[in-house]
């Protein structure tokens, strides 16, 4: 019973982090067809900004999330204006952007390595200890992580479904040409999507690094897992991706408990490969009509 509880709590936490990751990735994939391999960079930027705010600036913990979010938004803006903007109109965009964002991920990691050094640090944005349910300790940080993730999911959902910005992003993701013909500034919509994705990725970065550690390559793990979760759900399907994030998070933790830590990711990957053989567009994905 205790093990079950422990697994559930860990699984939910991990799932929550993946869920936020899939939000950011789906947003960009859906609106622009952009697979952002630099997502890990946003996570790292968020984590380091949080650390910097509390340690170097000596700021109050209340400021951490908003400032990290801001840093992420700036990074998203920079990514659009310095790189994506020039590549969007060209053919093979979906492949080229993967290559470029892989390069950018490395660039960010390298920069952080030079600025902050390679050693892993503790993320100070952390609530110590927790409470007990029977024999299992539920860390307060876990609850905070879940709460933050939930808030962000609600925030993104509200933005996408209720605001004009979200309305426009949805239109652009459903039919970019039609959106242009309505007078919608599609470039602006992309910028907004990248800014939003950057912001939430950075905030999730603060939480991720508080659960693990803070080091330059911290974002890669979450990125690749969030990606394969998006794919198994069906790229572009946000509710599906959120669901699969928790399902796969639980799956990974269970495998780790039963077989050992090292088998978590490979098992997750194996599951995704198998599911994709059966349903290549993802569990909830729709087969898209490709016009020749």
């Amino acid at each position, binding site marked *: 019973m205790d093990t079950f509880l422990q697994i559930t709590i860990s699984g939910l936490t991990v799932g929550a982090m993946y869920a936020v990751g899939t939000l950011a990735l789906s947003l960009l994939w859906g609106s622009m067809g952009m697979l952002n391999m630099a997502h890990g960079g946003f996570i790292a930027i968020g984590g380091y900004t949080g650390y910097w705010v509390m340690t170097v600036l000596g700021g109050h913990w209340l400021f951490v999330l908003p400032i990290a979010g801001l840093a992420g938004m700036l990074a998203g803006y920079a990514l659009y204006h310095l790189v994506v903007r020039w590549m969007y109109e060209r053919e093979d965009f979906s492949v080229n952007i993967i290559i470029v964002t892989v390069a950018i991920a490395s660039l960010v990691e390298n920069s952080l390595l030079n600025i902050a050094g390679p050693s892993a640090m503790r993320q100070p944005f952390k609530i110590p200890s927790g409470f007990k349910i029977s024999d299992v300790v539920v860390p307060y940080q876990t609850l905070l992580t879940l709460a933050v993730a939930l808030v962000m999911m609600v925030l993104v959902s509200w933005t996408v479904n209720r605001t004009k910005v979200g*309305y*426009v992003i*949805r*239109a652009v993701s*459903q*039919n970019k*040409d*039609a*959106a*242009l*013909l*309505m*007078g*919608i*500034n*599609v*470039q602006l919509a992309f910028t907004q999507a990248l800014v939003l994705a950057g912001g939430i990725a950075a905030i999730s970065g603060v939480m991720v690094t508080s659960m693990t550690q803070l080091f330059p390559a911290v974002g890669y793990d979450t990125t690749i897992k969030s990606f394969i979760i998006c794919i198994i759900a069906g790229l572009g399907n946000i509710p599906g991706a959120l669901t699969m994030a928790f399902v796969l998070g639980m799956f990974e933790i269970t495998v780790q408990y039963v077989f050992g830590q090292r088998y978590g990711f490979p098992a997750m990957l194996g599951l995704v490969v198998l599911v994709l053989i059966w349903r290549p567009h993802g569990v909830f994905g729709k087969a898209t009509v490709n016009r020749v």
Partner: protein
Amino acid sequence: MSKSMLKIDNLTTGYGQRQVLHDLSLSVPEGSVVGITGPNGHGKTTLLRAISGLVPVWSGQIFLNGTAIQEMPAYTRVNQGLVHIPQGDLIFPDMTIEENLILGGYLAPSGDELNRRLETVYDFFPRLFERSSQQARTLSGGERRMLGIGRGLMTSGEIMMLDEPSLGLAPKIIDHIYEVIAGLRTSSPTLLIVEENPTRLQSVADWIYLMDDGAFVWNGSADELKESSDLLNTYLGA
């Protein structure tokens, strides 16, 4: 000589290395309906897409109400008064009819104006009003066409370009669509219509251009076209 709402000078463009349009020139006088017809695959849709900015222009000029727009990004051309109702409708599949229409009115200056336009569209297309909260992806071909045109009406510009309004529709629905187009002349008097079926076009157009292989090989009044069956035979096998 009434002023031309849309004027194209020596337009040349294509896709990649392949040239599709060769040195095209045309003029759409204000308040008139101009048609473009010709065999499929010869560049009619490419022309409209070049005018609205979905396809970049290699050389030549496009004047909308006197302003050169060929360098402008597509979304600003809409602001200048150009409405393009594209081939294939290009509706937003996961939104309702009403949401689609509201997006059509994206540039409307006020909420009141938006509502006013919405009412006009619903008057033209009562079917759309009935199904206003239905998902666009569930619509039939005729309903999609109506939605496309309705959306264009919401955008409400100086000139409206329609690309193949009768494509893939049953004759009765085409009748309805062309009734609407005829009725459009009161609210949106300047129209440019691409239509593969010259008969339909003759019923609404004042002036018709014949396109073959990306070039205009003939232009004249609708009556002239009606009279010369040879012309129709050569290019359209009519």
